[in-house]
């Protein structure tokens, strides 16, 4: 019998490598890491390294309404302006929703982009693809996640992967599996590493490579021995492809047991007041882990605020009375406070540690929401106008780029499309879009994204 954490696997019945690796939380991490490592061995890394900054993307799955958050219309009719009121920020003339009081105190660091829009379908997946990759695409022409691009350009530092997504991948958001969180044609060497665990849980441990009670050998040795047992078994029944994976699995163990990686993923090292300051919830603790990972050498961390829009409190405020029944109550009591608390903690923490100047923090979403409330008091999908924002790195804070019309229905000034956001993030990270090309058809080099950075962000 193999004991993996609290799991017991019968060796005599022939455990598969997968069953070994998918046992409990340990399995989730261990499954991801070997795949990542194996494919990094075959990937290409562009050595043309510029001055490198890091990036944390907070992705608001479901998408908040622009009129209820960062582009309020207090003078519009009631069915447009909604229920919330604007509050003054620490930048004269910039007002945001009253339920972001802490963000309001640091608006001098933030650049709001109020004229985002795209012209394709109003599904979550369309928006995710745009904002994660800078492209819309179908299954035949998938485009890489921006973290995968960063991974290919800069490579990884130390034992840690270049591109991490917390706490897990986006799952069902209604219209298919293409969320833009894969490496696509860049190859699995640059696939994101998904944590696939909830850092807010009291028993959270990445890898969960605990020696079972009664095990006398060291933890690392015990785990290696167990892996070797499984490998031996597998070799008797599988082809040489199994053997080819060995180096990857060994490297995964090195990664998960290296002091560097253990330190980065070990949230219990954080003082309790810091953990409280981010919020003892999945999103808050993911933001804290993002800071730790960047501090330890990860290039890009994406925090998905929710992995679905169904049957949970999230930004997708349809108020439909069913599985999409988010309302102003969710925004006021949970979503806005949770975001405000964690985001302001992250920005302050990065600044206190001298990391904000070298870390771009982007808050992105799929689209906006209808300017007019629907019959049930909610708002539906609306890609014609929304607000996202950036700060950190060489982003100039305290400004608003673009504007919408009187009801938040259309960009009225300086319209911005998703590829410009990606181009801006790459630029802010020190990537020269004219020289750091991606492989295209027939190995022809192509630009990462067909857009130029938004110059006003940096001036």
């Amino acid at each position: 019998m193999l004991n993996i954490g609290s799991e017991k696997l019968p060796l005599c019945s022939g455990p598969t490598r997968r069953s070994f690796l998918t046992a409990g939380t340990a399995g989730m991490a261990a499954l991801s890491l070997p795949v990542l490592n194996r494919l990094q061995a075959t990937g290409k890394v562009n050595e043309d390294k510029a001055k490198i900054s890091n990036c944390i993307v907070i992705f608001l799955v479901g998408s908040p309404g622009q009129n209820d958050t960062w582009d309020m219309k207090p003078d519009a009719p009631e069915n447009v302006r909604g229920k919330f009121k604007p509050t003054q920020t620490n930048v004269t003339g910039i007002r945001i929703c009253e339920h972001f009081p802490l963000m309001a105190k640091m608006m001098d660091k933030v650049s709001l982009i109020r004229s985002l829009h795209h012209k394709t379908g109003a599904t979550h997946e369309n928006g995710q693809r745009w904002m994660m990759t800078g492209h819309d695409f179908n299954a035949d022409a998938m485009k890489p996640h921006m973290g995968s691009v960063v991974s290919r350009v800069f490579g990884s530092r130390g034992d840690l992967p270049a591109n991490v997504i917390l706490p897990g991948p986006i799952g069902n958001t209604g219209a298919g599996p293409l969320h833009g969180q894969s490496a696509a044609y860049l190859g699995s060497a640059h696939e994101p590493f998904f944590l696939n665990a909830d850092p807010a849980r009291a028993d959270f441990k990445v890898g969960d490579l605990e020696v079972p009670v009664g095990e006398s050998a060291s933890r690392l040795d015990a785990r290696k021995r167990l892996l070797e047992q499984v490998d031996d078994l597998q070799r008797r029944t599988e082809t040489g492809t199994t053997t080819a994976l060995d180096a990857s699995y060994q490297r995964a163990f090195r990664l998960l047991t290296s002091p560097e990686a253990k330190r980065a993923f070990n949230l219990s090292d954080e003082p309790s007041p810091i953990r409280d300051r981010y919020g003892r919830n999945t999103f808050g603790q993911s933001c804290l882990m993002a800071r730790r990972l960047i501090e330890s050498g990860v290039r890009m961390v994406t925090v998905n605020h929710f992995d679905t829009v169904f049957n949970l409190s999230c930004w997708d405020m349809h108020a439909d009375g069913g599985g999409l029944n988010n309302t102003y109550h969710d925004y006021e009591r949970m979503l806005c406070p949770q975001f405000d608390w964690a985001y302001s903690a992250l920005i302050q923490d990065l600044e206190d540690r001298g990391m904000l100047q070298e870390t771009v923090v982007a808050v992105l979403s799929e689209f906006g929401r209808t300017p007019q409330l629907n019959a049930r008091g909610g708002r539906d999908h609306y890609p014609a106008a929304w607000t996202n924002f950036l700060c950190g790195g060489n982003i100039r804070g305290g400004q608003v780029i673009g504007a919408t019309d009187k009801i938040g229905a259309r960009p009225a000034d300086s319209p911005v499309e998703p590829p410009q956001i990606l181009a801006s993030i790459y630029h802010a990270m020190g990537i020269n879009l004219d020289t750091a090309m991606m492989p295209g058809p027939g190995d022809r080099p192509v630009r990462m994204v067909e857009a130029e950075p938004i110059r006003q962000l940096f001036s």
Partner: protein
Amino acid sequence: MEQKFDGTPKAELRLQGRKVTRTAVMNDWGLMLRWLVKKDSKEIASVPARAVDSYEHPDSNPGTYTIVLQSWKYVNYKKDPKGEFVESKFVDISNTVTYTI
């Protein structure tokens, strides 16, 4: 992944005259905080408490006032036909302070 909220938040309130001051919240869920004000046992106000750590209720009419700090507690998504949460609710996370005018 449904969000996990482990532990129980806790803060201490201190009263000076009519001004109540709170400590930082230990085991903070990071959700909405509010001051709940009652007069003669009847709820008369709820005021956001996240951005500031003190509050003085403006009402100076005679009576006995109590103030407690509350946090939103997300249990689950269930809502009634009007869109109000069924099981998720505000819960007290501090001692209650009392003063009389």
